[in-house]
C-alpha cells in the first residue's frame, strides 16, 4: 500500500470508529425511547455515510453490509416497522461485524464473512410487519447543559499588547470550568482583536461564580472581571421545534468535530510534552546561572521566559486533555449486554462526560472502570424478583459520574443494589489471615470494605463467569495507585455500594520539594507535604522501640530518617541528627515524618518514569533531571509509608 493510501486508511479508520460509536449510541437511545425518530436518523445516516466511505476505499464487504443496515433502518425510518429489542440487537450485532470487516479489509487480509448477518438484515427488512404504531413522539428534552447561566465582563490591562491572545486564554480557561454559550463580540472578532479593552462571555456552569472570577483574574494581563448571573432565555421556536421532523431534521449526524479542531497524532503531542519538559529544565538551569553570576538584566529576561514557558506548558498539557466521555460512551452498551446475559434489568446513568483528563490517565483507567461496572451489574444489582421482594423498582441503576475536585478528578461508580456485607468481609479477611479477629474495634467500616482490594480476596462462594474470581479489585487498586490516585468504598446494606476513584488531572509536571541527603538530591511531590518543621518544634520519643514525633498539637506520627529510607545510611540509634529538618508527608489518611539533613527548596519538576527494571521498588516513584543535569529520585509517599518506620 502506498503512503497516500495508508494516510487515507488512517483517516477512514478513525472516522469510521466515530460513526460506529454514534450509531451504537443512537441504537441505545432508540431502545430507551422507541418512538423517538432522531436516533433513527443518526443510525440511518451513519450507515449511509459508512457505505460511501467504504466504497471510496474499495472495502466491498463493509460497503455491502452497511448498505443492508441502511436499508433496514430505512424501513424503521419510514415507519414500516418498529424498533423493537430484536431489531436493536440485530443492528448492534451488525455493528460488531462491521468493525471486524473493517479490521480485515483495512489490513488487506482478505474478505470478511458477512453472509450470515447480511441474510438476517435482509430477512428483517423484508419481514416488515404491519406498520408499527408510531404515536407522535414527544420532543427530546432541550439540551440545556448543566448549571446556571452567567455573564462575565473581562477587561484587559491597557498595556496589553496581544489582546486577542489574552482574550483567547481567558475564554479557554473559562471553557475548562463551564460551557461557553456566546461571546460579545463574536469569537472571530475577539480573535482578530476587534474589540476595545473588554469583552463579554455568556456561559453555563455549576461552579461558584467566585471560582470563575478567580480563575479569570489569574490570567496574565486581565485587569478586571465582573461575573453576574443572567436570566434564562425563553425557549424559542428556533432552538427546539415542538414536533419531531423525521425526514427534514437538519441536525448533522453524527456529531463530529468541527473546523476549530484538528486531528493530531498522539506521537506529536507526546513529543511536545517532552520538549516542554526539556524547556522547563533548561529554564531552571539558566536561572541557576543568572543567580550565580548575579546579572539582574538576565534575571528580568528569565522572569519573562518563565511566564511564557509556564503558559506554554499549560497549553501543551491542555492539548492532552480528553473528555472522559471518550471512554465512558463505550459503557452503556457493555452494561446493557451484560445485564441481559445475567437476566437483570439495569440502566447505566453517566454524568460529567465533559470533564477532561490527561490522555495517559484516561487510557489507564478504562479497564479498572470496566471491572467496577461489571461488579455492580453482577454482584451489586439484584435480580428483578429480588428487587421487587425488597420493595425496590425492578430496574436497577448503575451510575458512573466524573467530577472535578480542585486539582483532582473523582470518578464514582455506584449502584442501588444489595450493598456490601461488613460482617462477611471481616470474617473472610480474618479467615485469610489478613487481620487478627481481636483487632475488630480498630477498623472502621471504610477500612474493612477496602479488604476487597486485597489480592485473591473474594467473598462470592461461586465465581461467575463475569466476576468474583477475586482477581480484579486488587488490580484496580494497584492501577489507581500507580496513577497516583486513591480508592474509597462506601456501602449501605440494601441500598447500594459506591466506589470513588480520586485521580490527578495530569501526570507529567508537578511542584516538588527538593531535599538533599549527602550529595544526593531527592524530590517529594509538594501535594504530599503537610509541613516542614525545625527539630526544636517537635519532641521525639520512642514507643515500643520505634521513634515517633510528637507535634505541638499533641499528634503522634511515626518518624523515619531520609538517609535510611534512601539507602544512604544504615539504621542507627538516633532518630535525627542536630540541625535536621522534619518534613511531614502524608498518603491518604496516613502520615509520616522524615528527618532530612538539607532542604533545597521548592521547584517544578518533570516526572520521568523509571525503567521496568525497577518495577516493584518501594519508596521511589520516578526520577527527574535537575537544572545541573543530575538525576534526582522522586519519593513516592504511598509506597514509602508502607515501608517499616
Amino acid at each position, binding site marked *: 500500500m502506498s503512503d497516500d493510501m495508508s494516510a487515507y486508511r488512517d483517516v477512514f479508520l478513525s472516522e469510521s470508529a466515530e460513526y460506529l460509536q454514534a450509531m451504537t449510541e443512537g441504537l441505545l437511545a432508540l431502545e430507551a425511547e422507541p418512538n423517538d425518530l432522531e436516533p433513527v436518523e443518526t443510525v440511518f445516516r451513519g450507515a449511509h455515510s459508512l457505505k460511501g466511505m467504504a466504497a471510496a476505499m474499495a472495502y466491498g464487504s463493509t460497503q455491502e453490509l452497511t448498505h443492508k443496515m441502511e436499508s433496514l433502518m430505512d424501513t424503521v425510518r419510514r415507519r414500516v416497522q418498529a424498533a423493537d429489542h430484536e431489531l436493536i440487537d440485530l443492528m448492534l450485532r451488525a455493528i460488531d461485524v462491521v468493525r471486524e470487516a473493517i479490521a480485515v479489509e483495512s489490513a488487506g487480509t482478505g474478505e470478511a464473512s458477512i453472509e450470515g448477518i447480511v441474510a438476517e438484515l435482509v430477512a428483517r427488512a423484508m419481514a416488515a410487519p404491519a406498520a408499527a404504531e408510531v404515536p407522535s413522539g414527544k420532543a427530546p428534552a432541550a439540551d440545556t447543559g448543566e448549571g446556571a447561566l452567567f455573564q462575565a465582563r473581562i477587561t484587559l490591562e491597557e498595556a496589553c499588547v496581544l489582546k486577542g491572545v489574552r482574550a483567547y486564554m481567558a475564554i479557554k480557561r473559562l471553557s475548562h470550568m463551564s460551557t461557553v454559550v456566546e461571546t460579545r463580540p463574536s469569537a472571530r472578532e475577539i480573535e482578530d482583536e476587534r474589540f476595545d479593552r473588554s469583552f463579554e462571555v455568556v456561559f453555563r456552569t455549576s461552579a461558584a461564580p467566585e471560582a470563575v472570577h478567580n480563575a479569570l483574574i489569574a490570567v496574565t494581563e486581565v485587569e478586571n472581571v465582573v461575573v453576574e448571573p443572567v436570566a434564562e432565555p425563553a425557549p424559542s421556536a428556533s432552538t427546539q421545534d415542538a414536533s419531531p421532523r423525521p425526514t427534514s431534521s437538519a441536525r448533522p449526524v453524527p456529531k463530529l468535530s468541527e473546523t476549530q479542531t484538528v486531528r493530531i497524532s498522539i506521537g506529536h503531542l507526546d513529543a511536545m510534552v*517532552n520538549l516542554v*519538559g*526539556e524547556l522547563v*529544565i533548561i529554564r531552571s538551569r539558566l536561572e541557576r546561572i543568572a543567580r550565580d553570576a548575579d546579572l539582574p538584566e538576565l534575571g528580568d529576561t528569565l522572569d519573562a521566559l518563565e511566564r511564557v514557558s509556564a503558559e506554554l506548558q499549560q497549553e501543551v498539557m491542555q492539548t492532552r486533555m480528553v473528555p472522559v466521555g471518550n471512554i465512558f460512551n463505550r459503557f452503556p452498551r457493555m452494561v446493557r449486554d451484560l445485564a441481559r446475559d445475567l437476566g437483570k434489568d439495569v440502566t447505566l446513568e453517566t454524568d460529567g462526560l465533559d470533564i477532561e483528563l490527561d490522555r495517559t490517565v484516561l487510557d489507564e483507567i478504562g479497564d479498572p472502570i470496566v471491572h467496577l461496572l461489571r461488579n455492580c451489574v453482577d454482584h451489586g444489582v439484584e435480580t428483578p424478583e429480588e428487587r421487587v421482594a425488597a420493595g425496590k423498582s425492578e430496574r436497577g441503576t448503575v451510575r458512573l459520574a466524573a467530577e472535578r475536585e480542585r486539582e483532582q478528578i473523582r470518578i464514582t461508580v455506584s449502584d442501588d443494589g444489595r450493598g456490601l456485607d461488613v460482617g462477611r468481609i471481616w470474617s473472610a479477611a480474618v479467615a485469610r489471615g489478613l487481620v487478627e479477629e481481636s483487632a475488630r474495634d480498630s477498623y472502621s467500616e471504610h477500612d474493612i470494605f477496602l479488604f476487597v482490594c486485597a*489480592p485473591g480476596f473474594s467473598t462470592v462462594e461461586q465465581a461467575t463467569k463475569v466476576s468474583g474470581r477475586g482477581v480484579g479489585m486488587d488490580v484496580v487498586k494497584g492501577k489507581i495507585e500507580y496513577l497516583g490516585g486513591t480508592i474509597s468504598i462506601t456501602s449501605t446494606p440494601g441500598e447500594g455500594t459506591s466506589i470513588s476513584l480520586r485521580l490527578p488531572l495530569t501526570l507529567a509536571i508537578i511542584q516538588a520539594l527538593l531535599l538533599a541527603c549527602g550529595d*544526593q538530591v531527592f524530590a517529594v511531590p509538594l501535594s504530599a507535604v503537610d509541613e516542614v518543621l525545625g527539630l526544636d518544634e517537635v519532641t521525639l520519643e520512642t514507643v515500643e522501640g520505634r521513634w515517633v514525633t510528637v507535634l505541638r498539637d499533641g499528634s503522634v506520627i511515626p518518624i523515619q530518617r531520609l538517609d535510611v*529510607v*534512601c*539507602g*544512604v545510611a544504615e539504621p542507627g540509634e538516633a532518630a535525627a541528627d542536630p540541625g535536621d529538618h522534619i518534613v511531614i508527608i502524608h498518603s491518604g489518611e496516613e502520615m509520616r515524618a522524615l528527618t532530612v539533613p538539607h532542604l533545597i527548596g521548592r521547584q517544578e519538576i518533570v516526572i*520521568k*518514569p*523509571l*525503567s*521496568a*527494571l*525497577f*518495577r*516493584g*521498588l*518501594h*519508596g*521511589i516513584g520516578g*526520577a*527527574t*533531571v535537575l537544572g545541573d*543535569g*543530575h*538525576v*534526582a*529520585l522522586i519519593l513516592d509517599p504511598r509506597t514509602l509509608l*508502607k*515501608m517499616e518506620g
Partner: protein
Amino acid sequence: MDELLIAEQRQYVLFRLRSEEYGLAIKRVQSIIRYEAATPVPRAPAGVDGVINLRGQVIPLVDLGRVLLGEPLVPTQASRIIVVESSVGSVGLAVDVVYEVASIAVGDVKPAPAAALGAETSEAFEGVVSHGDRLVILLDADKALPKPVFMSGGQLQEDGADV
C-alpha cells in the same frame, strides 16, 4: 544449517570486561557514551548501579562486570556505557572498553560451553566465536540484564545472589 544463513554476516560491537571479550548485536545498540557515575537507586536489583541522564531520558545503568563476573567495574578514562534497546526499554551497560565493530559470520558462531561458564550466566550467551586470535562471547542483551525486584505485600527482597 541453510547455506545462505551460514554465510550471513552480522555486525557486533565488541567490548572488554576485565580480561574477557564480549560482543553485542549492533542492531540492539542505540549509542555508546563516555562512562559517568549513576545516581544510586535504593534497593535496586543487584547489578544495577542506579540511573543516568541520557539527553533528558532517565535510564538504568547496569554494571555488566557485576552481573557477568561478580566484580564491580573500576571506572577509567576508557570506560564506556553501551546504551541498548532491551525488553525493559533503554538500558545503559557499563563496560571497561569498547574496541571495535566487527562482522561475524553466523556460521562461525558456536554454542557457549555451559560447563565452563557456569549455568547461572550461560543463558545470557548466544554463543562464542573466534575473532582473530581471540575468543569472543556473544551476549543476549535481554538475558544479561538483572531481573526486576518484585516486591509484594510490603516485603523487601534484597537478594545479592550474584555479588
